[in-house]
C-alpha cells in the first residue's frame, strides 16, 4: 500500500481513474444493468406475479418465433420492412449534407437563417402531431382532396393515408421533412471549420462556385459524413417506432411494421413480455454483428476502424 502511494505514476493513474469512475458507473447502471431484463425471455412471465413464481422455459420463446410458416413469414416481413426503410434512409443519407452545403451558399444571411429555422423546427414536433397534420391534409375533406376534386384530378376522395403504395418512400419523405434541418446542423458546423485560405486560393486560381463546392467543401466534410453513416449503421435495426406507430393502419401494416413496432405491438397489446424480450435480444445480437461488419469494412476501405 505504502509503495503504491509513493509511486507517483500509480497515484496519478488512480486519480485519473477516479475522474472517469462516475461515467463508468453511469454506463454500468444505464447500459449494462438493464441487460438483466433479458432474463424475462427465458420465463413464462406474466404480471403481477414476481419472476420467482414463474416457470423457466429455456429457449421456448425463441423457437416459437420460427415454429411455423405463418410466424416465420411475419418475422421475415418485419425484417424486410426494417431493412428496407433503414436502407432507404441510408441510401439518402447524403441528403442533409448536400442540403447543408447549399444552405451555406445562400449569401443573403437573413434568408439563410429563415430557411434554417423553418427546416429545423419540424424536428421538435412530436410524431403524434405530425400525424394529425397529415390527417388534416390528406383526409377525405382535407386540402389535397378538396383541391384535387376541384381541379377534376379525381372525382371521389382519395384515401392517401390508407394506401400502402410507395409507403416506404412516403415514410422517408415524412422523416426527411422532420429531420433534414436538424441533421444539417452538424454539417454546417463542419463547413464553418474549413480553412478560409483554401477557398480564397481557389478563387484566386479562378475556381467557379460549383468547383469550390466539389473540390473543397465536400471533401472537407466527407469524414464527418462517414462517421455519421457508420454510427447510423449500428442503429440499422432501430429505426424507431413512433413514426410507424402513428402512421400504421390495417392497410399498410404489412409494409410498415418494423422491428421496434412489432415488439411494441406484441408486448403492449396484452402482455407478451417474454416473446417481445426474446425478439429484442435477437435484435441486439444482429446489431452487434452489423457493427462489427461495418467496422471491418471501414478498416478495409479507409485503413482504420472506428471502434
Amino acid at each position, binding site marked *: 500500500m505504502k509503495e503504491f502511494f509513493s509511486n507517483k505514476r500509480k497515484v496519478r493513474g488512480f486519480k485519473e481513474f*477516479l*475522474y472517469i469512475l*462516475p461515467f463508468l*458507473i*453511469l454506463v454500468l*447502471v444505464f447500459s449494462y444493468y438493464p441487460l438483466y431484463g433479458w432474463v424475462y425471455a427465458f420465463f*413464462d*412471465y*406474466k*404480471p*403481477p*406475479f*414476481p419472476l420467482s413464481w*414463474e416457470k423457466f422455459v429455456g429457449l421456448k420463446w425463441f423457437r*416459437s418465433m420460427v415454429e*411455423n*410458416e*405463418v*410466424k416465420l413469414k411475419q418475422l421475415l416481413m418485419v425484417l424486410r420492412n426494417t431493412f428496407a426503410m433503414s436502407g432507404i434512409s441510408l441510401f439518402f443519407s447524403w441528403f442533409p449534407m448536400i442540403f447543408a452545403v447549399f444552405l451555406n451558399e445562400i449569401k443573403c444571411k437573413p434568408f439563410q437563417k429563415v430557411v434554417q429555422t423553418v427546416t429545423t423546427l419540424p424536428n421538435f414536433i412530436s410524431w403524434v402531431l405530425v400525424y394529425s397534420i397529415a*390527417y388534416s391534409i390528406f*383526409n*377525405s*375533406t382535407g386540402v389535397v382532396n378538396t383541391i384535387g376534386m376541384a381541379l377534376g384530378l379525381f372525382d*371521389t*376522395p382519395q*384515401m392517401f*393515408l*390508407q394506401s400502402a403504395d410507395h409507403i416506404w418512400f412516403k415514410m422517408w419523405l415524412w422523416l426527411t421533412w422532420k429531420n433534414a434541418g436538424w441533421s444539417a446542423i452538424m454539417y454546417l458546423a463542419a463547413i464553418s471549420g474549413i480553412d478560409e485560405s483554401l477557398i480564397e486560393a481557389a478563387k484566386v486560381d479562378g475556381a467557379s462556385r460549383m468547383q469550390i463546392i466539389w473540390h473543397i467543401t465536400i471533401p472537407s466534410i466527407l469524414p464527418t459524413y462517414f462517421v455519421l453513416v457508420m454510427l447510423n449503421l449500428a442503429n440499422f435495426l432501430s429505426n424507431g417506432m413512433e413514426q410507424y406507430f402513428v402512421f400504421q*393502419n*390495417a*392497410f399498410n*401494416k404489412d409494409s410498415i411494421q418494423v422491428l421496434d413496432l412489432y415488439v411494441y*405491438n*406484441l408486448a*403492449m*397489446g*396484452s*402482455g*407478451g*413480455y*417474454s*416473446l417481445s424480450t426474446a425478439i429484442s435480444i435477437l435484435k441486439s445480437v444482429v446489431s452487434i454483428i452489423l457493427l462489427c461488419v461495418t467496422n471491418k469494412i471501414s478498416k478495409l476501405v479507409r485503413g482504420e476502424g472506428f471502434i
Partner: protein
Amino acid sequence: MKSKKLISLLCVAAMTATMLTGCGGASDSASGTASTSGSSSSATNTGNSGDSSAASDKEAMTFEIFDVAANYQGIQTGWFAKVVKDRFNIELNIIAPQVAGDAIYQTRASSGNLGDILILESGQFKECVEAGLVKDISSDIWNYSNLAGYKDQIDMLNNSLEGNDGKTYGIPTEMMNTSPTSYSQDVIYSSPLLRWDLYKELGCPDIADLDGLLDVLDQMMKNHPTNDAGDACYPLSLWSDWDGGDGMLGIANVVQLTTWYGEKIKGSTILKPDGTFIPLTDKDGSYYKMLKFLYNANQRGLVDPDSATQDWNSACAKMSAGQVYLMWYSWQVGFWNSTDRLKDGTAFIFTPVADQTYYTDADSYYGSGRVFAVGSQVDDAKYQRIMEFLDWYASPEGLMFQHDGIEGFNYEKGSDGRLVQINSNALMDNLPVPEEWGGAGYNDGNNAINQWIVSANSVNPTTGETYSVNYWSTYKEETMTDMKKEWAEKFGAAEPVDYMKANNKLVISPNVSVSLPTDSADISVIRNQCNETVCDYSWRMIYASDDAAFDALWDEMSNCLDGFGFQDLVKFDKEKHQIELDAKNAVAK
C-alpha cells in the same frame, strides 16, 4: 487549482449519487408518505366510525386509488373533492392505467403495493389476490351497514375465487338491488338507431333485414347528402382505435353489432342463443354476417371513407355535427340527442329490423365485472378510514353525489316532493359551480373515480326512484315529446325494450359473478397476435373490392390465424366461458 479539482470531483460524485438514487426512489417515497400519514393518524383516530360529519377532528389523509376505470390521473379537484374533504378529511390521488399506460399495473404490482383502494378488472383481481396484493376485509366489512346490504352479491364474488374459504377480498361494481335475470332499462346497449325525422320522411317503411336497413340509409343519404353546414354526410362513420378492447377479438364496430342477432362474442368464440359456442371464424356466425354488412354498406358508398384512418374523436365530431345517420351504442345518441332535438323530432331512436333479436346482459345485480378492493399494504388506521369511505360511497347520500351531482345545483325537490333535474347541461357545458360547493367547472370537479359500487339504475330507498335522472318521473314527463308519441303509436310500445319484450326479440343473459381462468403467457401471446390479425383483415374486408376478394381475404385470415395457434385459443375460450354459461343457466332456472 487543487481545491477546484476536488470540488469538481465532488460535484460529479454528488450528481452520480442523485441520479442513482433517483432510479429506485420513486416507489419508496410514495410508500413512505403513505405510511407516515397513516401512523400519525393512528394516534388521533379514536374510532368514531360512522360519524361522517366529524371530519375535521380526523387527521388529513391521502388515499391512493389504483383505478382501471379512471380517465384522469392526479388529485381529485373541484366539487367532488370538497364533498369528500368535508366528510372524511381525505384527498383522493387517482392512478389511472388508462392515462399512464398499462405498464403501470405491472410496475406497481411488482413493487408489492398497487395502492390504497384498488379498482381492478375481474381477472386482475383474481391474480392480485393470489399475489398477495389485496387485503382480507372479511372481519370488518359486515360492520358497515351500506356495504352489508349487498352481502349476497359480495359473497357471490368472493366465493367464486378459486380456493377461497369464506374470506372477503373484493366488492363488485355497479351492483343492483333488482334481480340477476331482469332488465330494467328502457334501451339496450346496442341496437340500430336511426334519425326519426329522416325515417319519417321516407314514410316509416318496415325494415325486413340488413339489406332493407341499407336501402333506408341509402335513401336518407340521397335525400340529405350534406348536413346543414354543408359537410358531406355518410350514414356510417367507423373508427379503429377501440379495436380489440374489452377482451374481445376483432374490430369494435363489428363486435358490437353482433348482438343484433342474439349472439355475443366471448373472446375468440361466439355464444349462440342456443347456448353453444362456435369459433369467431365460422362463416355462419354473426361476426362474418356483420362484417359483410359493413362491406355491403361500403360497396354502396354508405361508409365514411375516413373510417379506417380516423380515431374516435374525429368520428365523434361527425356525430355531433349530424354527419352520421346510423348509430348503435345506446350512449352514442348523447352526442346528438338533446331536449330540443327530441322536441323537434330530429333525434335518434331505436328502429326495429324485422329479422333481428337483440342480446343484452341483464341488470348487473351481481356486479358489472370490475372489483373494488383494499391494498394489502394499508395500515390499520388508514384501513378503517378507507372502509368508512367505501361505505359512504355505497350509501344513498354518496350515490346521489356520484350519479346526480349536487342538490340545489343539479337537482332540487319540486313543490310536490318529487326530484327535478336542473342545469341539465352541467356536464356537457362544464358549468361553473358556485364557490360554496367547491367552485371550478362541474365536469372538471366530477367524480374522477368514474366507477360506482352501486349502479345508477338501482332504486334509491329514500326517494323511491332510481339514481339515474333518466327514469325520474319528472324527466319522463318532460321528454314525452311528439316524436316519442309517434314512435309509440307506430310500434305499439312505450319504450324500445317494451317493444322487444312484447315481440319476443330480446335475449336477456342473466348476470352472474364467476371468476374465470386468466390467460397464461402462451395464450396471451396467441390472443394478441390473433386479435391483430382479425382486426387488420377485417378492415381490409370492409374495403374489399368485390365479393370474391372479401371471401379470399376471409380464408387468408383463417389460415393465418391457425398459424398463430387460433385453435388452442378457441379451445381455451370455450372452456373458460362454459364456466360462465353454466352459472348463467343455473341462475336462469
